[in-house]
């Protein structure tokens, strides 16, 4: 009973997964089901002159073939953008494009057939007459003369611009700086690669005119809202969206995708259940990508290492259209994090969201925050190098002290809590920093390329509160819902608006509720991911489930306890304030008389028999809460790695890796550690192996798992992972988000280690991914090599280094 908080309870969802009983959308079979396949553009930019579907329609087993115009005529709407900054220009995006395609993979024709094999055969028979158009791929080149417009109505291919901070103070800081570090860098485009490809199944009930859509989404309620209000037009009360077991998301399954419109539309049209399952090759071309920044930054310092100012200019590649939350990522989740763990009195951040002939870019694990951390922590490392300081010493010198929280940064955020010195003390101790620095010296004397990388990172998790989000451009709120339905026998069904796609809410949320009510955890069932069962909820992203969804559960539980106390007081003839609700036993008694206690189940039964309730109290024991947090939470981390680069091959070997994260209080350490471990590997993937690579014609060269290097087990050592705890002061659990911290910190912890290893060769900065080939060339080109040129080829084919910002187009400064 009770006492489940902080316990490493094994996950209750696991038995079905380890026995092959996962309820993924692609596993759903409905009798008489038809199968959809989508014809996608082979060109990055082209006009559609004509489409001939006659041969496809004539193929045996094909039920129907639909073009974009037919969908529009049939009532579908444009895919909306859910985050609108001032003066944003949102390009039109239809579920199937009609007269023009703007990236390889853009959807053009839908086929529905008796089997997926026949549907794919039919795609081969469709003739589309394309007139190829010139393309723009590189975010930095979108405004150059002669560059084609991705959308004719959007000049310069700039969808929006945004800026934040204290501009005048920043300029003064640089005018009076004793040292300035300048850095141009690329945060390369990544492809999320959740192991489960997206899928959708739709079933139309012609009698009741109700639609059920099963979709691989992280947030089924917002999807239902968008379908109802914008794209499909079926009223919300007639539309049920279910996201059952979802095989990973990492952000990519937040967004409203064309197939979520096409599949139910066809199901209604042919009055049959319809299924669509994305192939992996299609997912590379259609799942929203992540990152893709080009940045020019300057850090102003005093000679003693004190930071005095930071100026950042970023070109953020948005792809061909604005994905659902695209404008949020490089604005309110990026520029707002540029203060890092540090006191920087003056910060001015500017960004431009540019359109290109590439797959749309949106949130991917970390979403803006890894880009900020990578930039800040690279700048700090280079500053340490230039000032001849130890990178840890420089960081410590500039930390926000523990006694200055809550801390207001110059870029809008109010950090809730933290103790960065204690965080670093623990990580450095675990890592054995001083000793490893000594052995690094010895290794360097032997000519070995050994590097140590330190990263101190901040995250803003659980976006909030709704009012502020609205002011920043959100079209949605950022609260969460919870219902605790206590049954007459004292068991509970708990409905949460958060969604688990691997996080393990069925376990951790049951821990929270059982703990709050003093129940046996086996008497608590968590239900999520079904708009037909759960009240409107916002889903899971931005590491929000624990701090927002979990807090909503606490609020609902408080109401259940309050009602139980009323009933107990009435039945035990005592005042409410004299009733003790013992959460460790789940029993209620009058103060001083624990022997005469009533169990929670007894109270629940009494609530439903309603034979003996206080006057005016409604029967039943079911409470709901909608929790809108007061602020983000601010997890922070210190990750340290040691790598050695093989001079002969350029390969990076990770020798030691220590991660200490402060994610506040922890509900289930096993689950939190799992999140950190997985995040680290995704972060290292960006540092060493992963990149979406386009050629100059806009073809995605890294368009399969053969070509896009999702990291494998053998790349890694065992990671040494631990925590410090500064509880978040503003949510009832004291928790902070744990889902993205690993990814945010690991990328730069490894990148800094690799650059530290190369420092003796005079190499200052290389762009990620730091592949063996890139490092080998760099080593060869540097002093001591064989005279070959160092290469710093960028991950986007043909992309130049950013030019002089003075030559950039007129900037629209939208906020100071």
């Amino acid at each position: 009973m009770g006492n489940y908080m902080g316990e490493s309870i094994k996950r209750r969802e696991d038995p079905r997964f380890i026995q092959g009983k996962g309820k993924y959308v692609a596993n759903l079979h409905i009798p008489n089901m038809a199968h959809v396949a989508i014809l996608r553009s082979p060109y990055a930019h082209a006009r559609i002159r004509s489409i001939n579907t006659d041969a496809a329609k004539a193929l045996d087993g094909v039920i129907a073939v639909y073009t974009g115009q037919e969908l529009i005529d049939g009532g579908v709407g444009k895919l909306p953008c859910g985050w609108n900054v001032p003066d944003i220009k949102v390009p039109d995006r239809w579920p199937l494009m009609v007269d023009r395609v703007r990236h390889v993979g853009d959807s053009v024709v839908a086929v529905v057939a008796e089997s997926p094999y026949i549907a794919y055969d039919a795609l081969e028979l469709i003739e589309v007459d394309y007139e190829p158009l010139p393309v723009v791929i590189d975010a930095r080149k979108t405004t150059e003369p002669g560059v084609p417009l991705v959308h004719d109505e959007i000049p310069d291919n700039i969808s929006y611009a945004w800026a934040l901070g204290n501009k005048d103070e920043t300029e003064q800081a640089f005018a009076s700086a004793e040292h300035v570090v300048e850095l141009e860098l690329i945060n390369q485009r990544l492809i999320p690669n959740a192991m489960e490809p997206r899928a959708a199944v739709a079933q139309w009930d012609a009698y009741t005119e109700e639609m059920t859509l099963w979709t691989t989404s992280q947030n089924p309620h917002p999807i239902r809202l968008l379908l109802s209000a914008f794209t499909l037009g079926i009223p919300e009360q007639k539309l049920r969206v279910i996201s059952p077991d979802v095989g990973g998301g990492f952000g990519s399954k937040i967004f409203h995708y064309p197939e979520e419109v096409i599949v139910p539309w066809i199901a209604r049209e042919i009055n049959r259940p319809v299924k669509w399952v994305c192939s992996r090759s299609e997912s590379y071309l259609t799942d929203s990508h992540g990152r893709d920044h080009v940045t020019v930054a300057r850090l102003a310092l005093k000679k003693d290492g004190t930071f005095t100012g930071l100026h950042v200019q970023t070109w953020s590649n948005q792809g061909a259209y604005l994905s659902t939350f695209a404008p949020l990522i490089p604005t309110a989740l990026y520029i707002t994090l540029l203060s890092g763990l540090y006191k920087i009195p003056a910060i001015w951040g500017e960004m431009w969201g540019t359109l290109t002939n590439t797959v749309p870019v949106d949130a991917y694990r970390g979403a803006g925050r890894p880009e900020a951390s990578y930039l800040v922590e690279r700048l700090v490392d280079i500053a340490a190098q230039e000032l001849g300081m130890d990178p840890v010493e420089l960081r410590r010198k500039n930390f926000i002290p523990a006694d200055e929280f809550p801390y207001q940064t110059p870029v809008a955020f109010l950090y809730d809590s933290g103790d960065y010195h204690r965080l670093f003390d623990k990580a450095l101790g675990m890592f054995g920093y001083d000793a490893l620095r000594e052995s690094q010296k010895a290794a360097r004397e032997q000519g070995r390329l050994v590097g140590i990388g330190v990263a101190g990172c901040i995250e803003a998790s659980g976006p909030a509160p709704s009012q502020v989000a609205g002011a920043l451009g959100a079209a949605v709120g950022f609260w969460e819902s919870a219902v605790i339905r206590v049954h007459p026998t004292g068991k509970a069904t708990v409905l949460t608006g958060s969604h688990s796609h691997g996080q393990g809410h069925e376990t951790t949320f049951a821990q929270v509720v059982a703990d709050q009510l003093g129940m046996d955890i086996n008497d608590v069932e968590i239900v999520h991911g079904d708009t037909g069962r759960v009240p409107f909820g916002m889903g899971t992203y931005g590491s929000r489930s624990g701090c927002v969804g979990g807090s909503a559960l606490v609020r609902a539980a408080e109401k259940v306890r309050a009602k139980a106390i009323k009933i107990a007081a009435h039945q035990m003839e005592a005042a409410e304030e004299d009733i003790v609700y013992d959460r460790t036993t789940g029993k209620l008694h009058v103060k001083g008389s624990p022997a005469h206690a009533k169990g929670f189940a007894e109270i629940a039964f009494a609530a439903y028999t309603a034979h003996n309730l206080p006057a005016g109290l409604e029967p039943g024991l079911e409470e709901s809460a909608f929790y809108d947090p007061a602020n983000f939470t601010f997890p922070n981390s210190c990750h340290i790695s040691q790598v050695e680069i093989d001079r002969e091959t350029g390969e990076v070997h990770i020798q030691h890796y220590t991660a200490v994260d402060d994610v506040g209080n922890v509900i289930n350490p096993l689950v939190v550690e799992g999140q950190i471990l997985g995040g680290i590997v995704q972060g290292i993937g960006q540092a060493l192996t992963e990149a979406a690579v386009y050629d100059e014609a806009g073809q995605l060269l890294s368009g399969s798992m053969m070509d896009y290097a999702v990291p494998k087990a053998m790349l890694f050592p065992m990671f040494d992972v631990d925590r410090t705890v500064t509880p978040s002061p503003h949510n009832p659990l004291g928790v902070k988000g744990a889902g993205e911290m690993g990814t945010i910190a690991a990328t730069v912890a490894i990148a800094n280690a690799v650059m530290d290893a190369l420092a003796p060769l005079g190499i200052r900065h290389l762009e990620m991914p730091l592949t063996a080939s890139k490092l080998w060339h760099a080593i060869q080109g540097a002093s001591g090599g064989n005279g070959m040129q160092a290469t710093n080829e960028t991950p986007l084919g043909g992309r130049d280094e950013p030019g002089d910002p003075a030559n950039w187009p007129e900037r629209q400064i939208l906020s100071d």
Partner: protein
Amino acid sequence: MQVTMTVNGKSYTRDVEPRLLLVDFIRSELALTGTNIGCDTSQCGACTIHLNGKAVKSCTVFAVQAAGAELTTIEGLAGTGLHPMQQAFWDKHGLQCGYCTPGMIMTAVKLVERHGGTLSEEEIRHGLAGNLCRCTGYQNIVKAVQQAATEMGGGD
């Protein structure tokens, strides 16, 4: 074409197209959906099954090539209860979203059977090179395989 094969101890005969992939046969014809599909280039290993005693990616075999074969899928791995490898994945938190898990377990079982209970961390990491996981960072999968290896024993 008509094919007959034994899957999880039960014999099935079906008429199939020659081009039908074994994984689609297992999932669609036999309704054994524990075997997942994560890619279309034989990289991810989510579809790994046992075919005549070997771990095989069932997306890379035609159903007709498995005619007469003995197959085991995740559903048939344990007789009753859990196989030690399944138990170990649960104990060690070796899964999150669960999508790679059936394939990962089927590969790991054969890996341990090949190497025995004494296989090293490095052998495990290399042995899992054909199976991708995006959630766990592999660390707890390695620990799970170590636990199961101890329990399964055998080998040298």
